């Protein structure tokens, strides 16, 4: 078919373009920051011939953070894309469904109950907090699924229950936050607005395989997602085990969001906006649409993180806020353009 060939060409061009943009941002982000490092020094350091200071800043601080940003961006974006496909609702994303706030709630509990009794540089904290976040994400997803279950899952009820669970956790977060001391409150607030904080290679080592396994899984399910987009009745008629596939895909989306949120905090909007832009660029076919979403999400988050780090130096703006500042107007634009 002419048109499908044209689409494939467009897809390849887009992917290459996005990769180039990401690489440019990557290089810029390596150079910029509180400590500026010239490109030539970056190059030297990456080859292992830099100064000790450059080595520390680049390899131990900047690189892991940037790689995390890429992973989290791709993870959240694809999670949103899956949720939108499974619920047949363009407004679904991990933030709206309460997965972010579930994770947030557990992190707040963690900070509230354990932070004071622990040394804050304790390495245990660094690894316990994301575990708590993940547990919160799974808890929220479980609650949504159980509450929305009524002889099967109706996508509309799933969303409505998700919104309910979201505000429930939101309220609980406020209750605990108000009882915190100012220092914990600040930490909690930064976490909730989305901040890549576990800038450490161990983190990358844990997160990378998980996300890099789930992304191909989503792509493997692209055909199923295409058909589920036609609605439950048509999908059943075409021989898809709708309920089973939906559960599996929801699980994958929650896992992606959970891992991402565990390392990146409550980054909102990315899971909503990245699939939207990708769909506008390439159309609804998931085989093409999911890879674009993933690369786009990674690029946007890396860009947002670079901006957040450098706009008001030495103060850092949490990456989630940067994403929100740029996405919110785009989203309003989308709503105004919608028929």
């Amino acid at each position: 078919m002419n048109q499908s060939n044209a689409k494939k060409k467009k897809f390849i061009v887009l992917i290459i373009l996005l990769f180039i943009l990401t690489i440019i941002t990557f290089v810029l982000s390596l150079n910029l920051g509180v400590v500026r490092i010239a490109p030539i020094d970056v190059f030297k350091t990456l080859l292992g011939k830099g100064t000790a200071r450059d080595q520390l800043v680049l390899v131990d601080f900047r690189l892991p953070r940037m790689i995390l940003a890429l992973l989290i961006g791709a993870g959240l974006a694809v999670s949103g894309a899956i949720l939108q496909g499974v619920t047949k609702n363009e407004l679904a994303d991990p933030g709206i469904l309460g997965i972010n706030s579930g994770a947030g709630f557990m992190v707040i509990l963690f900070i509230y109950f354990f932070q004071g009794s622990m040394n804050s540089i304790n390495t245990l904290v660094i690894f316990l907090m994301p575990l708590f976040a993940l547990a919160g994400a799974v808890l929220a997803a479980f609650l949504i699924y159980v509450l929305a279950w009524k002889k099967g899952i109706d996508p509309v009820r799933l969303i409505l229950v998700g919104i309910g669970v979201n505000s429930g956790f939101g309220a609980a977060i406020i209750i605990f936050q108000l009882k915190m001391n100012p220092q914990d409150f600040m930490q909690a607030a930064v976490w909730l607005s989305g901040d890549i904080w576990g800038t450490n290679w161990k983190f990358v080592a844990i997160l990378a395989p998980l996300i890099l396994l789930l992304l191909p899984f989503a792509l493997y399910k692209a055909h199923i997602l295409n058909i589920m987009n036609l609605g439950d009745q048509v999908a059943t008629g075409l021989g898809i085990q709708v309920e089973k596939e939906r559960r599996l895909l929801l699980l994958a989306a929650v896992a992606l969001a959970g891992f991402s949120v565990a390392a990146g905090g409550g980054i909102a909007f990315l899971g909503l906006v990245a699939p939207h832009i990708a769909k506008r660029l390439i159309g609804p076919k998931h085989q093409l649409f999911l890879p674009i979403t993933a690369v786009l999400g990674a690029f946007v988050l890396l860009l947002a993180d670079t901006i957040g780090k450098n706009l008001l130096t030495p103060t850092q703006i949490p990456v989630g806020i940067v994403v929100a500042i740029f996405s919110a107007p785009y989203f309003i634009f989308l709503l105004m353009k919608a028929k």
Partner: protein
Amino acid sequence: MVSLSTENLQIGYGDKTIVENLNLHINKGEITTIIGANGCGKSTILKTLARVHAATSGIVYLDGKMIHKVPTKEIARKMAVLPQSPEAPNGLTVYELISFGRSPHQSGFGRLTDKDRQVIEWALEVTGLSLFADHPVDALSGGQRQRAWIAMAIAQETDLLLLDEPTTYLDMAHQLEILQLLEKLNKEQNRTIVMVIHDLNHASRFSHQMVALCKGNIVKEGSAEEVMTPDVLKTVFQIDAEIVKDPRTKKPVCLCYDLIQKEPELEHRKVMNF
């Protein structure tokens, strides 16, 4: 030969029972239409036959096998289902939509084989959509869109086609076009077709068997001549119908009709008892 049948089927939503005890037989190679008033359970029955909605009790047999024991993908190779006003995502092309009809014959990734492409081309041709293959489904007119969905269903290459109100929202000419397409599929390829339809005269003209429903029960089933009678229509729709013979097709048609005035008090009591 029987293609699809039900045994003591009871269907409901939650606590509400819609169909109490249905024993339906659909003959192979025939067009069967289900008629009835709004809310009488037509669509519910079709959904249950299509395994989209689970029955409370009773059994649906497809080619003699209990439908709930057969893998859903295997059923999809025998029976295609088209729900009422389905929706395609924005930007999906006609070709892509029809290609999904091949999914029961594929494994995993949904890669199209040469055979798949041939069937898709054929479905495009039969439905007169060859020129629109690359058009987005949402940019088509109502009639074209319905034909695209039917093309998807026939690309499934099943003996049996279930359609829920395939002509709703179409103008007179386009309604006829769809029905003639279905008739052609039935005659030339011996496909069994079951559909819910609101236009009685169309039902009469195109079906071998008609099933008239009232409150989930079969009032009358049989040929158009047997079902299109003033008595049956009175029970089913509470109308006083004038039935004549269509001079062109020789089939019974409802020329005109009036509502039968219900006794308001009686009606009220019925509601209370219910």
